[in-house]
Structures are given as structure tokens and as C-alpha cells.
């Protein structure tokens, strides 16, 4: 019995050791040559009220770079005010803004630990120029729904300290924007959720969408209702 066990043990040890050799060399390629992130120093806001980030904590996230390469497990958080991705470098614990053009997509988590997929898209601004923004990918299909988790700074609020000195404190508030991508690759933008504003985006299909919303008791004043409506529009091919 003792000999059997010793022999078996030897074989197992040998095989595990041998396996390590090869697997190490193959996986090493990915770890040694993983792409290096580039970015600028992030100067943190001080003295403000509200939240600047999609999730205030740094979360282990995956990044798809514009070069097509993937990076896994980087500590990220999305700053909705700057519309930039903040990266915590794990060797020096400093925070950097990753070059926007370098990121194609990233997968992170919200404050409730729900997964969220963000993508850099190019949309037409009110200033007529195109600009790159990060949006959360909610639905992808014939009609796609993206949410820009925009944070706006409202005018400074003056507070007075105990010694009577005036202090200007910035307040940040979430102001999400909703982008609906048409099959023609055009984007429709919604500032506020609501049935009327949504139906106005599709003047030709207004009636059919109205019937669909009514029939399925969808509340277009909520994100859930918006998602349900677009899902159904995709299923019933309301937009060609």
C-alpha cells in the first residue's frame, strides 16, 4: 500500500510540475505584454456636495482598448462630471484620467454591485461639433439605448462658517441623458423621461408606439419603462 501511494504521489507531483511549466509560459505572454494604460494626473475635487461618480468606490473593471486589446481587473471609477474614467494605479496608488481616445468599452459595477457596461460613442453636441462621450450600454439591438450618467455642477452655494467667513461649496447633481441609436446609426437624445418626449422622437410611429405602451402598461417616466418600451419596439420591429 505504501509503495502504491508513494508511486502515485510521485506521478501526480511530476505531472503538476510539468503542467506548470507550459501553462506558465503561455499565460506569461498575456501578463508580460499586457497593454499599458496612459493618462494624465487626476486632480480631485475638494469641498463639494453630491456625487461626482457613477460609483464612488474604485471597482475592479475590464477595459477594451481602442487597439482591440483587453485589460482585466483595473481599478476604475467613472467621473460623470468630467466624463472621464479615473484609474487607480495599483503600484503607486495615484489616480489618473485614462486617455479617452484609448478606451473603447469598459465593464464596471454600480454602487449596488450591479454590472454596468460603458462604451465611448461619438455624438453630435449642441455646438454642432462631434464629441466622444461615455455612455452605459443598456440595450443593444435595432434600437439601442445608452445612458450618459452626466453629473452637473449647480451654482455655488454660499455657506458661512462659525467664524462668519463665507465659503463657496460646489454641488453636483446627476442629470442623466438618454441616447437612442437608430438603425441608421443616428442618435436621438432625451433630456427628460416622459411619454410625450419619447413619442415626439418618433413622429411617424407615434400611434403604434402609443398603443404598445398602453397595451403593456409601460411607464415611460421610469428607466425601467423606457427599457421595456424599446425592448418591445425591437421585438415588434416598429422601427425599420
Amino acid at each position, binding site marked *: *500500500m505504501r509503495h*502504491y*501511494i508513494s*508511486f*502515485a*504521489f510521485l*506521478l*501526480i507531483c*511530476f*505531472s*503538476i510540475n*510539468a*503542467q506548470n*511549466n*507550459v*501553462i*506558465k*509560459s*503561455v499565460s*506569461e*505572454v498575456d501578463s*508580460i*505584454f499586457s497593454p*499599458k*494604460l*496612459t*493618462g*494624465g*494626473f487626476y*486632480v480631485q475635487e475638494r469641498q463639494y456636495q453630491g456625487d461626482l461618480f457613477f460609483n464612488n468606490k474604485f471597482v475592479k473593471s475590464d477595459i477594451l482598448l481602442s*487597439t482591440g486589446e483587453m485589460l482585466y481587473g483595473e481599478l476604475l471609477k467613472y467621473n460623470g462630471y468630467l466624463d472621464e474614467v479615473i484609474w487607480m*494605479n495599483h*503600484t*503607486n496608488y*495615484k489616480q*489618473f484620467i485614462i*486617455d479617452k*481616445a*484609448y478606451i473603447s468599452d469598459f465593464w464596471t459595477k454600480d454602487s449596488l454591485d450591479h454590472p454596468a457596461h460603458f462604451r465611448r460613442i461619438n455624438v453630435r453636441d449642441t455646438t454642432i461639433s462631434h464629441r466622444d462621450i461615455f455612455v452605459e450600454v443598456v440595450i443593444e439591438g435595432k434600437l439601442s439605448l445608452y445612458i450618459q450618467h452626466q453629473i452637473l455642477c449647480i451654482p455655488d452655494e454660499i455657506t458661512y462658517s462659525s467664524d462668519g467667513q463665507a465659503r463657496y461649496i460646489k454641488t453636483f447633481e446627476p442629470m442623466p441623458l438618454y441616447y437612442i441609436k437608430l438603425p441608421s446609426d443616428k442618435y436621438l437624445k432625451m433630456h427628460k423621461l416622459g411619454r410625450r418626449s419619447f413619442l415626439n422622437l418618433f413622429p411617424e410611429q407615434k400611434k403604434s408606439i402609443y398603443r404598445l405602451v398602453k397595451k403593456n402598461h409601460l411607464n415611460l417616466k421610469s428607466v425601467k419603462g423606457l427599457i421595456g418600451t424599446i425592448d418591445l419596439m425591437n421585438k415588434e420591429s416598429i422601427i425599420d
Partner: protein
Amino acid sequence: MMTIIKRTLFILSVVLFCCKMNVIAAGQEAVYLQTDRTTYIAGESVFYQLYVFDLVTKKRSDLSKVGYIELRAPKSDPALKIWVKVDAGMASGSLVLPDTLPSGVYQMVAFTSVMKNFGEQYFFHKEIMIVNRFDKKLDLRSVKSSSNDSSQYHRTDKLPWIKTDKAVYGPREKVIVTLGKTDIKANVAVSVYEEPQIKATEKSIVETLNECVVPATKLTSTAYLPESKARILRGRVIDETTREGVQAATVFLSCLDSVANLQYASTDSNGIFQMLLSDYYSGKELFFTIKDMPVGQKWKMEIEDNFILSEKWKPELISYKRDFKDYIYKSQDIVYINKSFGLDESVNENPIFENKPNCPQLYRSTVKSVYPSDFVPLDSFPEIVIEILPTVKLTRHDGKYQAYVMISSQGNTYSDREPLIFLDGVYVDDIQKIIDLNSAKIKKIDVLDNVRILGDLIFYGAVSIISKSNEIISTVPAPNSLRYKNENRNVGKSFVVVNPDSIKDHHTPFFKQLLYWNPNLELKKDDNTAFDFYTSDNTANFIIKVEGISENGTPISASSVIKVNNPINVTVK
């Protein structure tokens, strides 16, 4: 109960052992190099198809994306060295044999990076005969070998069977060849070439794969990594005094470009650093620098030659018994005629890059650009800094300059750390190299006034100078720097079948020894595959040779012969 446990344990361990043996071999490769012919005249092109196999599955390997091919004469350094991009275990192209190659037998060696871990005996070797166009003495010798004489066997018994519409053809006649269907989809290289009267030893893909053994060598920490993404450049930083590797040294790599570009790697415990060379670096001169070498230290950088073979080829050569001179004279004449008439149009240039390679740009953010030509001429860089670069400061201690950049994110104060300096896109190892540059030499200066990060490296601003006439080339590398020419990947040319009817002038000669070459012909599973080509005025026997592999790893090897006769000669007889 104990017996059951005993037996189960034993069986489990044996099964596990067997499974692991397979895993050991996973990532181990073999290659096979198929060429259009085995005898060439110097100046001709060698068309090749490289197959890379997984030694366990015997299927085409998906691991290595780079293959290496060398051509060498006995007891000589390699005459040609090329690297090719391997896609799904295959790579094809051509290499032009220099006109000046002396006559003799040459060896083609093919391998991948991971194969270097197990020794050169596992590389693929193949002999070809090259004859100089002006050699009339023809004192040729072949390698004494037990391998098959390729000119002696024309097998048609193995799949795929080769069928031609006729057995004998006249000059300038269309030949239709049909290859039988295979059990599963397969890719083969097909060549139709004049049967050489000179002995050539070569192994078929079937023989090569059957003889392949899984090397048992154990990998060490310095093992070569599979080039699964791109070519890997390996180098070593050593202490010149102790000759030992320097651990944790940072090596910068950049190359000549209109934008500052940078890649870095750190050395391991053996002083080895490795860098992934994307297509961006292909054919460029690479500038390496050891960053922040401590004062008083003598560190040196060495770049490993990916092609290096430890020993020269020393074959035992024997004289030919058969008379081959007429065949060689004819080959020389055909090459001479085709060169004289400029009839080398049967080859097409392939595109060099499918996609524009990504430049490892140091910064993508906005920088302040200054064009010295917009200002009055200034005699030196320190003068330029004082007059037109307000965010840069130069100080001088003991005759040495130091630069500092005003960092906007740090309240517009000068950083106490030196910025990175670039000249023509290349990281400059010594600021003294730019001090003498004046307005007449500088085209543009970019100043990056921000703290930046690249991987784990933080730097405090950057100054990038683009000169009018690539001044970086004329600078002398510092002791901690090195320049290295990165060879372009071989793409070569592709073969084009010429229809003799398309030749307008009927007095133009049309002699060919290679009638057809297709490195990647796909054989169908449920139908025969046909291809066609034309015979030339060269009357001889031609070999149709098919070598390849199916999707399930079955090697395919077959050959057949067709005859090209001159009907006028036949009538006279």
C-alpha cells in the same frame, strides 16, 4: 476497501499523468516548409508555404504568429534570414535569392520561437540546390542522406488523387488539374515544376509529421515565450564589470516618428527584458535606452538575435552520379532569357500591412506646440527656451543642462523632476544632444505640461522636438543606449499564372520551369477541386506536387507527372 482505494488512486494518478503529458506537449510546435521547387538559379524567387503544427493534435497551430526561415550554405553564416507572419498555422510568400550566391547545396531552416526551447534538432531542415547563373563548371555536390529522392517518386495513390485532362500536352496549352475530394476540408500548397535532373532530398509533410517527436526538455525561467501576439524581442542588461544580469532595470524603446513614442520593459532576475514588437516597428531602426542608470555603474544592453543558430551546417557532401549539366544549362538559359526580356511579370507584390499599425504614442492629450520659424531665428536650444518656451526652464550645473517643465495640474509651478525629452519621436538619453539645435534645425516643439502615466511609470511633463532633417540619426548613442535595425517581415510576391494568349508579341519567348504555384488551395470535403495553368515552350516532364494538411490534422502528400512535348519535333522523328 483498502484495495479499492489503492487501485482507484493508482488508476487516477496514471490517467492524470497521461493527461498532463499531453499538456506538457501543448504549446510545443513543429513546422514544415514547402517550396515550389528544389533547384533554383541565383536571382530567382523561392516561393514557400510554412505550416506550423501543434505537436499533440498534429493540427495547424494557433499559438505562434511568427515564423523564422533561414537559408545557409555549408560552414557559412546564413545567406538569408526572414521572419514571416503566421496566420492560423500558415504563412506564405517568397524570397528572392541574391544573384551573387555561389553554386552549391543550401539548407533552409524553419522554426518558431517556442521551438527554440527544445534545441535546434527539432527545427525543420530542408536542402535545396542553388546554381549561380554564370557558373559553367558546375562542380556540384549533394548531401549524403538516407532521405527520399524527390525526383524519383511520383505518388498518386495517396489522397488527394491528382487527375489531369491529358497526360501529354503541347507548348502553350491549357492544363486542367482536378484534385479529389478529401474526408474533411484541407489546405494544400500546389506546385507544378520541371522535373529536376538533379537529386534533391526532401521529406514530404506526411514523413515529417510522422517523424515528429515531442521534446521532453523541461522549460526553465529563461524559456522562450510563444510569439502568440507579435514578434518578441529579447535583450539583456548586464553589469559590464561582473558580467551578471541587472535586475529591475527599465529599458525604453522608441523609434523615429513625427510623434513621441515610447514602450518600456523591466528586466527580470536574469537581467532579461522582453518587448512585443508590433507591425509599427517593422523595418524601423529601434532606439533602446536604459532609464536612470545609476551614476558610476557600467551597464550594457545586448539584444538577442531571433535567428541565431548555435552551430554552422557541416553536411557530408558527395558527388552526383547522374548527368545534370544539360538541365542546369537550360535552367540558366531560361533565367537569362526571362531577365533579358524582362519577363518576370509572373509575380505580384503583396500588400505590406493589412491595417495601419498602432503607434505607441506617449500622449494623446493637448500639448502646446511652438514653431520656431514663427519667431526670430535663435541660435541654440537654451535661447529658444528663454525666448519662446515660457513653460520650460533650463538650468546648468557643472556644465550639464537640466530641464524642468511647468506643470499645470500642480498650480503652474516648475516640477522638481526632469521631463522626458524626445527628438524626432525618440527618447533622448542625454539632454546635451539637443542643446545645439537652433531655430534653423527645429521644425516644431511640443511641450506637455502635465503629469502623465504610462503603465507604472510616472513622468513630469515632456518636451518633444521634431527636427527638419531627422537630427536623431546623426547623434551618437550614449553607453546606456543601443540602436537595432528591426527587419521587415517578409511578404514577398505571389505567383500569377500567365496565359500565353495574352502575350501580344508572338516573338516574345515563353519559357517556364515553374508553371503553377498556389500556396493555399482549399480542398473541399464534398467536391473535387480544379485549377488550371498553361504550359510554356519549355518541353519537359513536369511534376505536380501537393502537400498540405486537413482541418483534423491529417497530412496530405501526393504528386503526379505531366509531359510537355513539342509536336513539331515529334513529327520530324
